[in-house]
């Protein structure tokens, strides 16, 4: 984590540790770049405004050096064009300050799984729920489930990140490609519709709401 604001950095380090991760800190761009080049990290969290070398330059240099470690850019600048610039520089995700820690955690976990073979799979399986990406068919306990195209994509994204918390903003960004705030919480209704299609009439619920964070699809009581 390259973050010059020490209080924020220590808070994040502590919170990540409580969530079962370990984080190393660097307080300026140069130190952070040096540490990142040494490698051994699953995800890099890079603040956009850093002393000595700004965050976007750090990411550009890493990418120029062939370092493919996923990067999450943190920034106080949050407009659409800032995000576009951040992603163009080679960032994999972009989060605007202030953010909820649960949002940061969900995104880090999603990023760290990027290289996971699950990504390339043509079939996602969670418990007795099966999604086939080639035939666009979904079955639960062998019974076909009829989904609208958008519901299919929603389920696909959730299942790709099975066992991980996925936030509402992540769903908006990846399932709808919207980087704006839809004012009212419109995602919840889509989720409850999806839930009524895959979980209704079954003893075990697979699609869980994680309070204050988002949603998670998983089988077996966690």
């Amino acid at each position: 984590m390259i973050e010059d604001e020490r209080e924020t950095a220590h808070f994040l380090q502590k919170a990540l540790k409580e969530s079962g991760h370990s984080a190393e800190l660097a307080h300026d761009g140069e130190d952070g770049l040096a540490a990142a080049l040494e490698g051994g990290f699953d995800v890099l969290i890079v603040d956009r405004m850093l002393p000595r070398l700004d965050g976007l330059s750090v990411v550009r240099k890493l990418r120029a050096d062939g370092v493919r470690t996923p990067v999450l850019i943190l920034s106080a600048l949050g407009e659409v064009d800032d995000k576009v610039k951040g992603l163009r520089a080679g960032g994999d995700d972009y989060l605007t300050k202030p953010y909820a820690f649960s949002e940061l955690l969900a995104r880090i976990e999603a990023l760290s799984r990027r290289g996971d073979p699950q990504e390339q799979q043509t079939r996602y399986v969670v418990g007795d729920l099966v999604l086939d990406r080639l035939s666009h068919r979904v079955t639960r306990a062998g019974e076909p489930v009829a989904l609208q195209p958008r519901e299919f994509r929603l389920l696909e994204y959730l299942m790709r990140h099975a066992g991980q918390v996925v936030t509402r903003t992540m769903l908006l960004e990846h399932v709808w490609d919207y980087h704006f705030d839809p004012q009212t919480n419109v995602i919840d209704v889509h989720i409850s519709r999806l839930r009524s299609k895959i979980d209704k009439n079954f003893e075990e619920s697979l699609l869980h709401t994680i309070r204050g964070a988002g949603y998670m699809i998983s089988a077996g009581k966690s």
Partner: protein
Amino acid sequence: MMAAYVALFVTVAAVIAGAIVWQTNELLTRQVLTTISAEAEQLETLARMQGPASVADAVAERSWAGRTHLYFLADVGAGRIAGNLNRWPPELRDGAGGLFRYTPEPGLETHERFAIGVPVTLDGGRQLLVARDVEEQREFIGRVRTLFIAGFGLLVLIGLAGGIAASRQILKRIAAITATSESIMTGDLSRRIASSGSGDELDELARNLNQMLDRIEQLMAGLREVSDNIAHDLKTPLNRLRNRAEAALREAHTAEDYREGLGRTIDEADEIIKTFNALLLIARLEAGAVDETMETFDLTALVRDVVELYEPHAEESHRRLRFHADGEILVRANRQLIGQAVANVLDNAIKYGGRPSGGGASEIEVVLAQKADRVELAVADNGPGIPSLDRERALKRFVRLEASRTEPGTGLGLSLVAAVLRLHKGSVRLEDNRPGLRVVLSWPVPAVLHAREGQPPGTRAMVDS
């Protein structure tokens, strides 16, 4: 500066006058020379044809003809044979023609006069001088010169006086503008520059400056309103946040109480952040700083997607969303911002568009249409609508009409929509849907992006809930 200009003006005038006088003199002199050269040639021919005596006769005869015709015929020893000059002019001794002075016959006039003469040598070595008196010509030139000097002098004086008067007048008006702008700088933004009413360039400048001041005053008023509103709309939730935290500290007894108190504090903070983000976005849109994120996309697909995103939510709020569009409409715009604007308008329609009586599902109709070089997106509900007097106010920042004060929201929804449309050189109209409100977003689309031709007419996209 002024002195240099005057010096230049006078010099140029003097050069012009000098050139005219010199030219006139040259012309007259050349005429005289031509005449006397012809006469000299004629007399020379006479001498050759009829002998020297005839020339002496002719000279003697012509000498009486007029006082301006001057002759001198001299023998080899330079003694006078005939003519009305009393001597061979010393200036023309070397045989060349030119200007000389002579004294007319003593007794008549005593002072010297100027003349131009051409000498010729006749057969037998006699010398003949044919000349003309040019005293009158010189007088004429003198008068011309005097006239020019007087004329140009007068012109210079008038020009200077006029110039000084005009620049005085202009400087006075500029000083008035400076005085006005100084009093504006010290804080009196309501002052305006007076116009002379003649409609000249300075008046135009004054008018433009006044318009600029109007705009600045308007922006300042807007800014003041915004800061007042920020104070109100951010302070209120901040105060609420503080109260909740305090209440949690004071009243909570169990861990669960604390947890709930903190949860509500975070919710309140999130609302404040939302308001803040919306404000920042509006400010940046109004600064026009998001140009590079323009992309070309199918507007119909985007609107259909947003409608689809809101559809389940609408249904839960007992609204029916209906969407009509005439096939693909390609636009070049900021997709995220347009999406945000459409979402805000839909969100508003769902929030406030319900039938006052509350009976049955209300319809919300979303119609996307291409009209010549514009696209128009109309979102119409059949709720209570907005009274015509309030419509303009509804587009302003933070304005939450009384009817909606109780609903959650930042009060920035429609003003953000208006800012997005302004960025795309378009506009937002609020119309009466009888009953209900119709919000019309419209912005220009370049002709090159018009929907592809040959679109089959049957491709009306429909999403009904």
